[in-house]
C-alpha cells in the first residue's frame, strides 16, 4: 500500500497551490485529478489552432502589493505569470442595451469612484458611502493577507446584510445600483443572496486593476506543474477517491481510488465541489447533520460561452478588453433565476498568437442557470438530443445578435468557432452542475472549509471562502497554515517572500 503524508484531491488552482506548499515543506504529497489533464477550470482548449479559455478569463489583484502577488511569490511562479492589464477606460466598459448608455472606467479604486461621481453628480453621498464601505470591509478582512498572523477571520456586520439591501439603503438609482453590483458576475450569487461583505471582497481587487494573463490559465498550470515536479509531488490523472474506508475514531484509515488502489495518508485535502466530497464519504459513517449541510448548498450561476474568432481587413489585433452588456438597468431582475429574458453578456476581447500571427478572439459569455439545461442532464457530451442542439444554436444566435446590435461594425466579422453550455462545462471540468463558481455564497452560510467530518479530511477550493482564483488560492494557503502549524507556516512565508 502506498503511504503519503497528504493527498490533495482536485488539480484546479486550489489543489495545485495546496499540493505545492505542502511539497515545498518536505511533505510526501499525492495530487489526484479525475480528468485526463491537470488544471480544472484553468484549462484552455484549442480549436482551429486558436486557444480558448474555459473558466479563467481575467483577474483582479495583479497591481501593487496585494495578496495575489504575495502568493505567486511564495510559490515562486511570479516570473512565469504575465498579466496584461486593461488600462484604457474604453476597454472596461458597461453598456445598457435598452437605455443605450455606456459607462467606462479606468483602473484604480479611487479612480473608479471619481469616474462614478462624474457620471452621477447627484449621487455623491451614495457613491462615497459605497466605496468607503467596500474599502472598510477589505481592510478588515485579515484572511485576504497571507502575512497576517490573525487566527480567525471575524464576522463583520456587513457579512449579514445582503448586497441588495445595502444598495437599496444607499440609492434609488437603478443604473447606479447595477454598476455597484456589476462584479456579481465574478462571484456567481445574486444580489439578494450574497452578503455585502463578500461582494466587496471580490470587487475591491477588480476595482484596483483588471488583467488578463498571457496564455490564460495555461501559464499557471505549466508553471505549477514544473514546481510540483521539483518538489517530488506525485501526480495521478484519471484518478479520484471512490470511497473512504476503515474509519476508526473518526479517522479515515484508507482512501480507496477508482482503480482499486488503497492509500494511507495523514491528511486528505479535498479541493473539489462539496457534493463530490460527500459522495466519497460512506453514509453509515457520516452524520446526517453533515450531509444535510452539504445538500442545503445551492449552486452558483453558470455561463453560456461562445468562442468567437474576429477577422476584419486592416483591423488591429484586439487589446485586452472586457465589455459587459446589460439588457436594462434592473440588476435584480436579470439575476433572478426565474427571469426569462436576456441576461448580462460579457465580451472578453483579446488576441492570441496562432502560428506567429495575432488572431483576435472574443469569449462571449452570458449568465445562465442550471434549470435551463436540466432536462438534458442525463446525456453525455457528443451524444445529446436534437432539442439540445437547437437550444445551443438559439442561444448562440441571440448572443451574436446582441453583439452586432451594440457593435454594428462587427457585422460579418465574427465567426463562432464553438459554444459551451453548463452541461459542456459539467462534462469537461467534472463539476456536478457545470456552474461558474461552485456553490452560491449565501449570507449566514457555513461553507465547507477546514477540517470536515473526519479528523484527517479537509476542504478547500473556490466553494470554501470566496470564488475566483484569488479566493481559491487563499483557501489553499489557509489550509496549509493549519496543516503545517502556524509557526512553521509563518517562517515559510517569511522566507519565501524575502527571496
Amino acid at each position, binding site marked *: 500500500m502506498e503511504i503519503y503524508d497528504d493527498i490533495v484531491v482536485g488539480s484546479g488552482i486550489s489543489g495545485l497551490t495546496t499540493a505545492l506548499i505542502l511539497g515545498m515543506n518536505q511533505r510526501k504529497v499525492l495530487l489526484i485529478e479525475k480528468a485526463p489533464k491537470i488544471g480544472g477550470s484553468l484549462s484552455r482548449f484549442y480549436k482551429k489552432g486558436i486557444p480558448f479559455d474555459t473558466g479563467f478569463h481575467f483577474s483582479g489583484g495583479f497591481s501593487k502589493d496585494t495578496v495575489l502577488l504575495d502568493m505567486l511569490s511564495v510559490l515562486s511562479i511570479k516570473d512565469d505569470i504575465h498579466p496584461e492589464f486593461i488600462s484604457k477606460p474604453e476597454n472596461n466598459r458597461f453598456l445598457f442595451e435598452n437605455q443605450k448608455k455606456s459607462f467606462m472606467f479606468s483602473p484604480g479604486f479611487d479612480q473608479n469612484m471619481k469616474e462614478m461621481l462624474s457620471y452621477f453628480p447627484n449621487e455623491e453621498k451614495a457613491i462615497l458611502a459605497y466605496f468607503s464601505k467596500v474599502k472598510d470591509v477589505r481592510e478588515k478582512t485579515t484572511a485576504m493577507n497571507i502575512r497576517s498572523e490573525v487566527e*480567525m477571520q*471575524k*464576522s463583520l456586520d456587513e*457579512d*449579514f446584510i445582503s448586497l441588495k439591501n445595502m444598495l437599496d439603503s444607499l440609492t434609488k438609482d437603478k443604473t447606479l445600483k447595477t454598476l455597484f453590483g456589476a462584479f456579481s458576475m465574478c462571484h456567481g450569487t445574486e444580489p439578494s443572496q450574497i452578503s455585502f461583505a463578500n461582494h466587496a471582497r471580490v470587487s475591491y481587487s477588480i476595482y484596483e486593476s483588471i488583467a488578463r494573463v498571457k496564455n490564460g490559465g495555461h501559464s499557471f498550470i505549466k508553471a505549477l506543474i514544473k514546481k510540483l515536479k521539483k518538489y517530488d509531488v506525485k501526480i495521478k490523472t484519471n484518478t479520484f477517491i471512490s470511497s473512504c474506508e476503515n474509519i476508526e475514531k*473518526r479517522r479515515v484509515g484508507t482512501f480507496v481510488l477508482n482503480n482499486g488502489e488503497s492509500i494511507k495518508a495523514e491528511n486528505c485535502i479535498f479541493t473539489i465541489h462539496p457534493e463530490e466530497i460527500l459522495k466519497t464519504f460512506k453514509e453509515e459513517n457520516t*452524520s*446526517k*447533520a*453533515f450531509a*444535510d*449541510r452539504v445538500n*442545503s448548498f445551492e449552486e452558483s450561476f453558470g455561463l453560456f460561452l461562445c468562442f468567437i474568432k474576429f477577422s476584419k481587413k486592416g483591423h488591429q489585433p484586439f487589446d485586452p478588453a472586457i465589455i459587459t452588456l446589460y439588457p436594462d438597468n434592473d440588476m435584480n431582475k436579470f439575476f433572478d433565476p426565474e427571469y426569462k429574458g436576456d441576461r448580462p453578456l460579457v465580451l472578453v476581447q483579446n488576441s492570441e498568437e496562432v502560428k506567429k500571427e495575432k488572431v483576435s478572439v472574443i469569449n462571449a459569455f452570458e449568465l445562465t442557470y442550471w434549470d435551463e439545461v436540466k432536462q438534458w442532464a442525463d446525456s453525455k457530451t457528443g451524444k445529446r438530443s436534437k432539442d439540445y442542439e437547437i437550444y445551443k444554436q438559439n442561444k448562440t444566435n441571440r448572443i451574436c445578435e446582441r453583439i452586432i446590435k451594440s457593435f454594428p461594425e462587427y457585422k460579418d466579422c465574427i465567426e463562432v468557432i464553438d459554444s459551451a453550455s453548463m452541461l459542456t462545462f459539467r462534462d469537461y471540468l467534472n463539476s456536478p452542475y457545470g456552474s461558474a463558481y461552485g456553490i452560491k455564497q449565501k449570507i*449566514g452560510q*457555513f461553507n465547507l472549509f477546514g*477540517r*470536515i*467530518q*473526519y*479528523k484527517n479530511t479537509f476542504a478547500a477550493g473556490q466553494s470554501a471562502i470566496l470564488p475566483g482564483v484569488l479566493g481559491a488560492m487563499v483557501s489553499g494557503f489557509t489550509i496549509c497554515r493549519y496543516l503545517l502549524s502556524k509557526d512553521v507556516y509563518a517562517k515559510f512565508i517569511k522566507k519565501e517572500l524575502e527571496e
Partner: protein
Amino acid sequence: MSDQIETMINEVFEESFEIEKDQLKPEANIFEDLGLDSLDVVDLVVALQKKFKVEIRTDERIKEIRTLKDLCEFIKDLQAEGSH
C-alpha cells in the same frame, strides 16, 4: 417556552446526529456523553440555525457550551437578542 426549546434541541440531536432519546438529558455533556466531536460543532450550528431560524454568528459563547442545558440557554439568549 423553555420546554419547547429543549424539545426542539433534542429533536436536532435525534434527527441530525441519530442520538437515542433517553440519552438526551439537560445535564448531558454534548462531547463526553453524547459523543459529538469538535468536528461536529459547525454541523450542529447549521442544524440549530435551520431549526430555530436564528442567525448564529461565529460567537465566543459557542466555545463555552458543554451541556444540553448550556445550549438551551444560548438559544434563549439568541432569541431574546433577536426580538429587541
